[in-house]
């Protein structure tokens, strides 16, 4: 591509090449600035996690004068952060799997079947998602206590589903609508049941959308703090954001361990996005233009 442009520019009149070079330089300068803008906070987080406390406060610099892993030692040995990461993984994977499965059925039903109050159900689901968490945390904590699910990962999974299911269902409706009805009908003529048509035709064809919804759901569950703060009491049940929050115990912030925890907490999400970025872009585009 660049070679073709360069060949074309050789034949260009004098001055055009200069403009082309200037244009390219400007493009890369803007891209570099955008990358720096995005990466600087991540870089700052990473290097702060490697600094001594005194250096963090006294000598704000782009590179540590003395590299230390003590912040990570505090995190893993003193604060048992591995347990929090494990809890977050359990909750996030469980919420994602359950949410995608149930919302696939719900979205398919709304897209393909005709029944009374279908539109109303659709709107109620959306309204449920739009209700602020801060209004719901006390009613939800009462509900969990009455169900005997307070202070447990099961309770947390159930509560997170109340937020993830509406969004997942709403998003998946858009993707499912993009699958031609005729494909399912042909499959059913060939002997597939309705479930077979859903799971063998619609779901595979909506894979990018399902991947995007899964990533959104996983990220939401992974990052959630307020409900975890209210519902979880025991140290052994704390999720990663909650464990990070518990590092702040006074008006002096332990920046080193906090940043180390932020780095460790970011890794699963970074890996997930890196692996699924292709599906993510494809899924978002499909949902936006065909929904």
């Amino acid at each position: 591509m660049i070679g073709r442009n360069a060949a074309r520019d050789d034949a260009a009149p004098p001055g055009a090449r200069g403009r082309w070079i200037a244009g390219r330089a400007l493009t890369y300068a803007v891209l570099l600035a955008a990358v720096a803008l995005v990466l600087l906070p991540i870089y700052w987080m990473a290097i702060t996690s490697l600094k001594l406390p005194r250096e963090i406060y006294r000598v704000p610099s782009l590179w540590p004068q003395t590299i230390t892993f003590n912040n990570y030692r505090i995190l893993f040995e003193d604060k048992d952060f591995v347990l929090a990461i494990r809890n977050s993984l359990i909750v996030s994977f469980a919420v994602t799997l359950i949410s995608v499965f149930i919302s696939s059925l719900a979205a398919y039903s709304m897209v393909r079947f005709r029944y009374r109050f279908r539109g109303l159900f659709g709107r109620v689901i959306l309204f449920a998602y739009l209700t602020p968490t801060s209004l719901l945390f006390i009613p939800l904590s009462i509900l969990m206590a009455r169900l005997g699910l307070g202070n447990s990962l099961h309770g947390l999974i159930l509560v997170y589903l109340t937020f993830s299911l509406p969004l997942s269902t709403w998003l998946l409706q858009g993707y499912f609508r993009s699958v031609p009805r005729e494909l399912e009908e042909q499959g059913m003529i060939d002997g597939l049941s309705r479930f077979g048509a859903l799971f063998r035709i619609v779901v595979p064809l909506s894979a990018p959308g399902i991947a995007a919804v899964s990533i959104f759901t996983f990220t939401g569950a992974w990052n959630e703090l307020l409900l975890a703060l209210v519902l979880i009491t025991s140290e052994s049940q704390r999720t990663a954001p909650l464990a990070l929050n518990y590092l702040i115990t006074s008006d002096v912030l332990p920046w080193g361990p906090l940043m180390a925890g932020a780095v460790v907490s970011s890794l699963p999400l970074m890996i997930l996005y890196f692996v699924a970025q292709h599906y993510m872009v494809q899924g978002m585009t499909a949902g936006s233009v065909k929904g």
Partner: protein
Amino acid sequence: MAEKHHWTRRRVLGTTMAGAAAAALGGKRAALAAPALQKGSKVTFWGGLIFSDKANKLLVDTVNKWGADNGIQTEAVMINQNETVQKVSAAVASNTMPDALDLSLDLLLLLSRQGQFLPLDDVYDSIGKAQGGWYAPVASSTDTSKIAGGRTGIPFGVSGNLLLRRDDLLSKAGFSKPPTTWEELAQQAAAVNKPPLFGLGLALSNVGDGNVQISVMQSYGGRIADDAGKTVTIKSDATREYLRWVKAAWDKKLFPPGNTTWDGAGDNQAYLAGQAAFIANTGSVGIAAKSQDPELYKATLYSSLPGGPKGVVSPIAPQLRAVPKSSKNPDAAKALIEHLAQPAFMNAYYEAAIYGPVLQDQAKFKAFTGGDPILAGLLDLVQKGTAPAYPDVFNAGYADMFNNFMIPKMVQRVVIDGWDLDKAMDEAQVGTQAIYDKYK
């Protein structure tokens, strides 16, 4: 009107002697007639998570050991004090409160009015009698008898503000003694003010640290409300005098940039970053500096807050333990709270934590006589400090005004928006009166 309690040396010595005599005469501990604790029953305890990991661990270990010794199953959970309100609000609503918990005076008063806690007068009297009596400001400020029909909280520690100063810089500038007045503080701060090091690391923002300005205003004679605690009296000559002091210091650029928007950690970070010569803090900065920046720790000295024309106003903030009415094991919860007041445990706890004592005999603890400057400052605070809100009345209106940061906001009008002092006072007066009127 709230009573101010001055502790003269004679009074302290007299009380100490009386306490020692009482102990010598036999009452090592006037324990409650211990109710039979139900073996195998369970007690859940929510402790207040504080800056010191050592203190947190000690508390959990002590609770668990008490449980093991008494055949009671214990669950000790440390709750982040920054989130106690959300946690307790949800627990009250869902009826999942623990059997005993640590909480601040504000929250205790609020929930006591709602009838959430059991009266603990017997435990309070027993502990007080055994350990030389409660410090007067602690006793008066934590008395919930009028609103809850009895004492619902057992104090276990006191925090408040100390003045931290950079002795290394101030000594070089010729100031070897701490400032005793706010005017002196401004003079000393001006002498070492060389940006990026600023003299006065005091918050003027809408956070708890910003409310230190209420104490400064009160020490100048300014008041939030009248003695009945109903009519707001912010606009006065005394408040004007206080605002002149702040404005003069601001105009001399003694405050670090951003101090009108600092969060709760702003002043601490400025001090730890070497950007402030003075800050008012509970002592947590000192503890942090001890492990993270020994050089700064050595260069730091502690004293009580300076005073104004009307004397020193340095409010204490008691921390308490309470037993919810919903407790399924109240006798065991009360026994646990009494156990946690035992001298051996409290001495070790105070050595690791950043609380001042609440009982007269605790002043003799090694923790407070061992030469630790922060703990000595906290002892000084409880002996010379004032009850919360003093000279104002600590009521619902005051608490609401406090949580709405009316005084820091008034100061911001003067230093940021450039308002005339009277106009700023008028706005604070009207806004605060509206708050007080809600509770008439």
